[in-house]
């Protein structure tokens, strides 16, 4: 039996369903990411688990107990919000201590636990500050500390990194994951950012339009998307319709074809003649747009040295790893 088990969950707003018959399991200590475009129902699912949004029907089992009838206060779930939701009238220390205050934990014990958790997020020296005196990244770490101090059974993270700038985001992503591992905390993370999902999660649950499209580890989702949406949402797949796919491979293809940009090799002695249309430097990767048999393909090549760079308009040849071709529905 999984630690968290969502069963046949239904939710609709004003008659139109947000999601129907959602089934989803999370193992103890697992870091699961709900990934999907905005409006796919991932945040609503998270809020249903937290008890902040009532469900229409279905069950949510946490450690074997159905928590649907319980109020948010009684679920023992910690949550971090995109907006941080720190209490502006309280210092960092008071913010973190709030949950313990509600549980009527004794002052000296509370103080020790607040110190511990602030140390965990490396904010001990900021205990006396107010939220408006902190940066976004620091605010989110305080919010994380505040949700951890009550030792929740389950931690929910609702796009906690979306409001932060790129550098802080990367750093905090690693910090959250390290803390989660250290505490062995079962965590559900919501994001629309595929990179966050791929780098952080034990398992990814990909959602679209109120249903779960695919669920698996990062490797599976990346290399074996089950359908067109999955292929389009994760990675930068070249998606070809049957027509263009047949032209490229010069054999009849019935469905759509997905080719990962890095599974194509550019060189001078490949199998297919092609022409470089444009290129852009992404840092360690150069992304080419090439034309081959009247089909445009995106090709990612590792940026080894400037001498390897193919200029726009240059004729090259390419080869495609046949095992990397995927036909999707």
């Amino acid at each position: 039996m999984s630690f968290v088990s969502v069963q046949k969950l239904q939710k609709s707003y004003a008659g139109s369903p947000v999601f129907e018959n959602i089934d989803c399991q999370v193992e103890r200590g697992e870091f699961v990411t709900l990934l999907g475009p905005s409006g796919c129902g991932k945040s609503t699912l998270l809020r249903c688990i937290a008890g902040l949004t009532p469900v229409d029907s279905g069950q949510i089992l946490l450690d074997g107990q159905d928590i649907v009838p319980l109020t948010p206060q009684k679920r023992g779930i910690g949550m971090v919000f995109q907006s941080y939701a720190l209490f502006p009238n309280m210092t960092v220390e008071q913010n973190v201590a709030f949950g313990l205050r509600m549980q009527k934990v004794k002052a000296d014990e509370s103080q020790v636990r607040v110190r511990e958790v602030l140390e965990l997020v490396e904010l001990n020296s900021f205990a006396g500050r107010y939220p408006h005196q902190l940066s976004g990244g620091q605010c989110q770490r305080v919010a994380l500390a505040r949700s951890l101090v009550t030792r929740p059974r389950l931690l929910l993270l609702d796009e906690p990194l979306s409001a932060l700038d790129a550098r802080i985001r990367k750093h905090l992503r690693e910090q959250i994951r390290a803390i989660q591992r250290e505490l062995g905390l079962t965590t559900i993370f919501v994001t629309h950012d595929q990179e966050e999902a791929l780098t952080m999660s034990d398992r990814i649950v990909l959602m679209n339009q109120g249903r779960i499209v695919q669920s698996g580890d990062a490797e599976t989702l990346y290399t074996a998307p089950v359908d067109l949406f999955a292929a389009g949402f994760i990675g930068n797949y070249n998606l070809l319709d049957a027509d263009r796919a047949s032209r490229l491979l010069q054999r009849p293809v019935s469905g759509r074809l997905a080719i990962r940009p890095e599974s194509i090799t550019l060189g001078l002695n490949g199998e297919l003649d092609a022409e470089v249309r444009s290129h852009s430097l992404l840092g360690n990767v150069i992304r080419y747009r090439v034309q081959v048999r009247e089909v445009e393909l995106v090709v990612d090549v590792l940026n080894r040295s400037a001498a390897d760079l193919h200029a726009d308009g240059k004729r090259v040849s390419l080869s495609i790893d046949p095992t990397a071709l995927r036909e999707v529905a």
Partner: protein
Amino acid sequence: MRAETGKGGLYHKLVVYLLFLILLLPLAGTLLYSLATSWSATMLPSGLTFKWYVALWSEPRFLAAFGQSLLVCVGALLLSVLLILPLLFVVHYHFPRLDAFMNVLILLPFAVPPVVSSVGLLQLYGSGPMAMVGTPWILIGCYFTIALPFMYRAITNNLQAINLRDLMDAAQLLGASTWQAAMLVVLPNLRKGLMVALLLSFSFLFGEFVFANLLVGTRYETLQVYLNNMRNSSGHFNSALVISYFAFVLVLTWVANRLNKDKT
């Protein structure tokens, strides 16, 4: 703010000071008149004295009117805080769509002229089971409706700035009941808006005359009604009254601002 220099700067300053002068002139005149022994045929008063203030502040009828004004205003504001705060909370937390409706509703006290609505109030509360014309109660109720728009707008702005929903959600997940979350998390963050609203409403209500005169009149004399009734007495005395009233509101505003600043 950018520092103004040169000719343009001088011009701008001149305009501002001139405006100040124009606004303050009547007040300065009143102040001088209230301090003058007599001032009729000369350019400047013939002498300065505090006797009008002494006379005013030892006049029992004035003190009573002052106290009654204070009581009515504080009563009305207390009522509005007790009713409007929970109302705002419910509107913004549970029924955000009602906000548009409320915005129309709070304009009503402004849309209907006081002379008109007081006639309606006289009809409604003049007799029958809820007869309270001539008592301070009707003024408290009526002033509540006047304070409503000020209170609602100022606190709504404040509420929108604090992300009410997330704060409530966070507090509840940390174990706080709705009541605890509202009292410990939301209310302290509304202090600024509440203060602004209270001061604004108080200054407005303290100077209100039409409703006070029509609904209650001399049966429960407020400051403005008293001032009106004294219009045929000494001008010096009345000037002292106006200045006293003005100074009181000024000091109150200043004290409230100081108290508010120290806490943040």
